[in-house]
């Protein structure tokens, strides 16, 4: 059979689609290296906007917050998400599978607002802890799906074999199952980290007044106007996302199918 090749029309339309996706990002990155204060016309190459970022104390605190939140919520969600993923793959747990679908199927605004209401009604102080609790919740879902996808093609009999050969339940879990699904777990963890560091809506509602993260800082900068500093910080966040996503897909390609 002939290998089907995309026709010229398809190639053209598809290429236009990719241009639509990438030209705005390219322009944004380009202007982060522009000498001019306004994002208009090319004046000259500079790195000064990046230097400005690293001297901005507020921004550095926000970046540190984002990092702390992302690390803790991805670690916790990897543990709980792996349990959930294995449970979903090996047993029928309809209640759990509904819970896991919520952050994927429900509008983010709804999740954010209901979490805000929840924290306020139980008199929980909004801040880093409430953000971490909320991020962990939606990250669990993504890790669970990553792990479940990884286990999909796996031969479950290796666990039975380990048990037959004298491993106890926990040994079979830690020494056989976990190593064989490790790529899925790592990919899920990277996804969780990326989601957490880039999340705006849920953070916005659960942050309260005192604590800020990178996306929250970008949001308040955007309300004032367009500046090259935002381009620089955006460029750095895009680069982090590209690296993490690329690693995640490399480790566990079936994740994105």
């Amino acid at each position, binding site marked *: 059979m002939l290998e089907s090749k*995309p*026709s010229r029309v*398809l190639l053209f*339309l*598809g290429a236009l*689609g990719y241009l*639509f*996706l*990438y030209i*705005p*990002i390219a*322009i*944004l990155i380009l*202007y982060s290296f522009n000498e001019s204060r306004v*994002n208009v016309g090319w004046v000259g190459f500079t790195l000064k906007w990046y230097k400005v970022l690293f001297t901005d104390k507020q921004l550095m605190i926000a970046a540190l917050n984002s990092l702390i939140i992302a690390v803790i919520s991805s670690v916790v969600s990897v543990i*709980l998400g792996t*349990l*959930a993923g294995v*449970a979903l793959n090996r*047993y029928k747990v309809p*209640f*759990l599978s509904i*819970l896991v679908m*919520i*952050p994927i199927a*429900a*509008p*983010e*605004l*709804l999740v954010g*607002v*209901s979490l805000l*209401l*929840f924290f306020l*009604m139980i008199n929980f102080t909004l801040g880093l802890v409430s953000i971490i609790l909320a991020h*962990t*919740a939606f990250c*669990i879902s993504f890790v*669970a799906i990553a792990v479940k996808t990884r286990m999909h093609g796996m031969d479950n009999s290796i666990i039975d074999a380990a048990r037959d050969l004298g491993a106890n339940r926990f040994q079979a879990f830690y020494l056989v199952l976990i190593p064989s699904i490790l790529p899925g777990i790592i990919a899920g963890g990277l996804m969780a980290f990326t989601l957490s*560091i*880039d999340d*705006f*809506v849920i953070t916005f*509602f659960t942050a309260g007044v005192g604590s800020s993260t*990178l*996306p929250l800082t*970008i*949001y308040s900068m*955007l*309300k004032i106007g367009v500046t090259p500093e935002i*381009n620089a910080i*955006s460029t750095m*966040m*895009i680069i982090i996302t*590209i690296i993490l*996503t*690329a690693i995640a897909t490399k480790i566990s*390609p079936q994740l*994105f*199918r």
Partner: protein
Amino acid sequence: MKKLNQIAEKNLLSIPPIIYLTFLFLVPTIIMVIVSFREPGAYGGVAPLITHINNKSHLNMNLESFKFAVFNKFIWELLFRSFCFSILSTIICLFIGYPIAMLIAKSPKKYRDLLLLLIIIPFWSCFLIRVYAWMIILGPQSAISYIVNYVLVLLGFSPVNLLYTSAAVVICLVYINLPFMVLPLYANLEKHDDTLIEASRDLGASKFESFWKITIPLSLPGILAGSALVFIPCIGMFVVPELVGNNCSFMIGNLIKQQFLQTMNWPLGSVTSIIMTLGVLGVTLMVAVLVSRLGGLKYARE
């Protein structure tokens, strides 16, 4: 004995995540439903559940907020606008996303992973950044703005502002959610059997006919999944109208945000959120039923 062990293992695995997710997703939703029946407090929040007046206990639960919302023209106007913007964005996403998904599906295997990765990367980056990119592009001093206004003035119209319009809102909604459309469409198109197209072509169908009568109907599940995935997040968007829209492009999400953070009327905010959710569910179900009926009809005819 083995059965018992299996149940123990199942519980050991599933109970920790179930507890966590129940507290962080289910309980908040239930609280929201309860709050929607309560009275707004005098200084924001909710009024005490039970008040004692003249030694009589009075339960502060009622349908007042629902009544207020149902007869409030403003809420329905915003909801209608949100649906219009979201449906329009979904349709545009479908038109842009379909060729992309098809291009990936028809590309040689070695390029597919890269092409897919290129769709996924913007999808994982912060959406504020992607809105910001369009704020630069549509800004009053941008090249596009300059060209459009140059042409408009030449044709005798007065110049317009591209940013801070409803059009800018729709463009950003499309841009942010496009990957949601491409991924499920690709997953569907990839499974198509090329021999069907070949057969139809051998039997005399034109390229367009075989696309319209075979590829499109077969990809309906992908179209449906993609549309739902684009439509649902669009509805609740409040940042986009805030950053690139004007007073006439506010959506239901802006109202909900305002009710919770500015006017602090939690019951009304909860009611509005519930109405929005029911609306989303309604449309999604309607489309699902419609498509399954259409599919059924098609098979019945053949």
